[in-house]
């Protein structure tokens, strides 16, 4: 970091010598400022602040208002433009750091961990400074006041976050591992601090704290599933090449392997595709050497399936298989009659969305579609759930049928999807234990108190180190 600062100062310093005395100091400050703002902007992209704080569909940058539907209820992202009335315009750098690293805003309120402060706590002092300068001087002030977050009881008691933080939020800054290369440490920092990949890809316990002993081995995210990205050959991405992992991060697509949808598509589009090649290399290097976490699976998730031949058997046949009927009429138009896709449309076999141990991503993709822009190119698969046009929409039954057809022919034939599962996915996924427990029916028994205490005891005894290294 220090070396960088010196280099940044060289050019403006040289310029200042050439300029007249009256301008020299001003030029130096301005140039340094501009460089710092640019650095802060890059960091904000890496940390993907805009993912939540910039509302989609032409929302003003960082002005909040985006509703994040968490399993506990709707969380509204705040306005973090330098507006003095609606944003963080009167935050000192100390206030800013406290919010981003500790999850406590200027008013002293605890933020919900939808704001990934548990990862951002690791951001270095220098980077925090750059971020602060960027947010104060590089973002346009917007006076839009978004609605306040109002989660149902008991999650509306923000101060309860104090106890959760005590259990699950690290206060430790990032410490580079002495026995790892600079590149791996940079990757560690990107993955666990800035890009906070762990907040999705690391499994969580019953109280929704990260289970860091199983770091990056996969986690549920509402309707979607963030898969195992440890180097395990069967359960993870151990059978991917470095180039393939890099390509996936930069474009969201590797033919014959995987494509990003849902929250990962957003991460690629708004954040990862903008990272420097060096930073991508660092992320890959880090992921390559974290502990491999095995899970019960017969095959890597990108190695299943083959082209289907049902078109020959079922075309124009009366009352064909219900799953094929949906496939042929809704899916084959792009994925082709045999499921092999082409240049543009992915093959459905050798595809992690269909070969995974869980069907969540397959179902979610059919329900929500795919919307991703990388390198200026749009990738679109329409939604077939309630968001879709009524002329194209599929019922839960139809989505279950076609999911089973796809799984049987192109992916993990062990899985079976029911219409109830489809309903769960399109309603935001399986609700976590604490959300289910918080319902009044359960409260009444008082049993929840006992259960929480038990879980706390168990969790404390299992709390492991944050670093996967």
């Amino acid at each position, binding site marked *: 970091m220090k070396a960088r600062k010196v280099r940044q100062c060289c050019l403006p310093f040289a310029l200042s010598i050439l300029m007249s005395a009256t301008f020299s100091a001003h030029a130096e400050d301005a140039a340094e400022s501009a460089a710092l703002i640019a650095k802060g902007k890059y960091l904000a992209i890496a940390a993907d602040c805009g993912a939540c704080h910039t509302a989609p569909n032409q929302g003003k940058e960082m002005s909040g208002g985006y509703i994040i539907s968490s399993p506990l209820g709707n969380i509204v992202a705040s306005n973090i433009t330098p507006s003095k009335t609606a944003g963080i315009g009167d935050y000192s750098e100390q206030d800013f750091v406290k919010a981003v690293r500790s999850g406590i805003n200027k008013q002293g309120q605890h933020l919900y961990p939808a704001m990934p402060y548990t990862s951002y706590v690791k951001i270095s002092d220098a980077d925090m400074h750059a971020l602060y300068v960027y947010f104060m001087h590089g973002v346009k002030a917007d006076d839009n006041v978004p609605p306040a977050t109002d989660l149902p009881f008991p999650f509306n008691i923000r101060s309860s976050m104090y106890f959760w933080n005590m259990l699950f939020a690290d206060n430790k800054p990032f410490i580079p591992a002495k026995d790892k290369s600079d590149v791996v440490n940079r990757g560690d920092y990107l993955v666990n601090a800035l890009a906070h990949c762990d907040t999705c890809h690391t499994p969580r316990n019953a109280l929704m704290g990260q289970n860091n002993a199983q770091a990056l081995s996969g986690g549920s995210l509402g309707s979607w599933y963030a898969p195992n990205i440890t180097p395990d050959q069967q359960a993870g991405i151990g059978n991917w090449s470095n180039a393939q992992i890099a390509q996936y991060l930069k474009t969201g697509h590797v033919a014959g392997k995987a494509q990003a949808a849902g929250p990962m598509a957003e991460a690629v589009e708004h954040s990862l595709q903008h990272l420097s090649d060096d930073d991508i290399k660092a992320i890959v290097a880090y992921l390559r050497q974290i502990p491999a976490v095995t899970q019960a699976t017969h095959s890597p998730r990108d190695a299943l399936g083959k082209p289907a031949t049902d*078109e*020959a*058997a079922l075309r124009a046949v009366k009352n064909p298989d219900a799953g094929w009927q949906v496939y042929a009429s809704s899916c*084959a*138009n*792009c994925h*082709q009659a045999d499921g092999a896709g*082409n*240049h543009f449309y992915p093959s459905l076999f050798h595809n992690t969305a269909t070969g995974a141990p869980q069907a969540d991503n397959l179902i979610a993709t059919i329900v929500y579609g795919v919307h991703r822009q990388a390198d200026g190119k749009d990738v679109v698969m329409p939604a077939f759930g309630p968001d879709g046009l009524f002329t194209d929409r599929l019922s839960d039954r139809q989505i279950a049928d076609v999911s089973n057809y796809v799984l049987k022919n192109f992916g993990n034939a062990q899985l079976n999807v029911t219409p109830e599962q489809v309903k769960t996915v399109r309603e935001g996924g399986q609700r976590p234990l604490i959300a289910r427990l918080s319902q009044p029916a359960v409260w009444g028994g008082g049993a929840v108190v006992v259960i929480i205490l038990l879980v706390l005891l168990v969790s404390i005894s299992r709390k492991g180190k944050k670093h996967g290294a």
Partner: protein
Amino acid sequence: MAHNLSRRRLLQGMGILSLGAMCNSLFPARALAADQLAENGFLTVSQFLVSRPVGPILGQRYFDALNRHNADFTHRLSSLQALLQLHNFAHVDEFLAAFGADNSDWQTAKRIISAWYTGVVGDGSDLELIAYADAMMYLPTKDILVVPTYGGGPFYWAVTQDGKVATTGEGA
């Protein structure tokens, strides 16, 4: 001439088929097994006529449809098969050079080719579609043209950098 030889041809054809098949064709109750065996003959003949591998699933469907639309199809097939076996043509073009539209086996061949190529069986307005995407008529242009309703992908058709026609990425 056709009449005089037809019985001989029929016997020849049946001789080529297994004994079980001969019994099956005499006893309609075992038509299913006969179908399967006859289909093997159908597949061989089809493969010869279209000069490319043919699938057994579509083969069975075309065979059944051709029988539905032509009461004497099985006999006509046997006749054609016998002819082909007799001459042992190396390629369908040789058969086509040797026989023309006035020959009933040639007409049978045309019917079979038409089924595989257009995906449709029948005459006039009494038509039955068996295949659409799998219709062989789309194969000779598969490298450049899509089968309508199946997309090549956004803007795949844009002319290439060096001004050439775009391809679908499939072989012809």
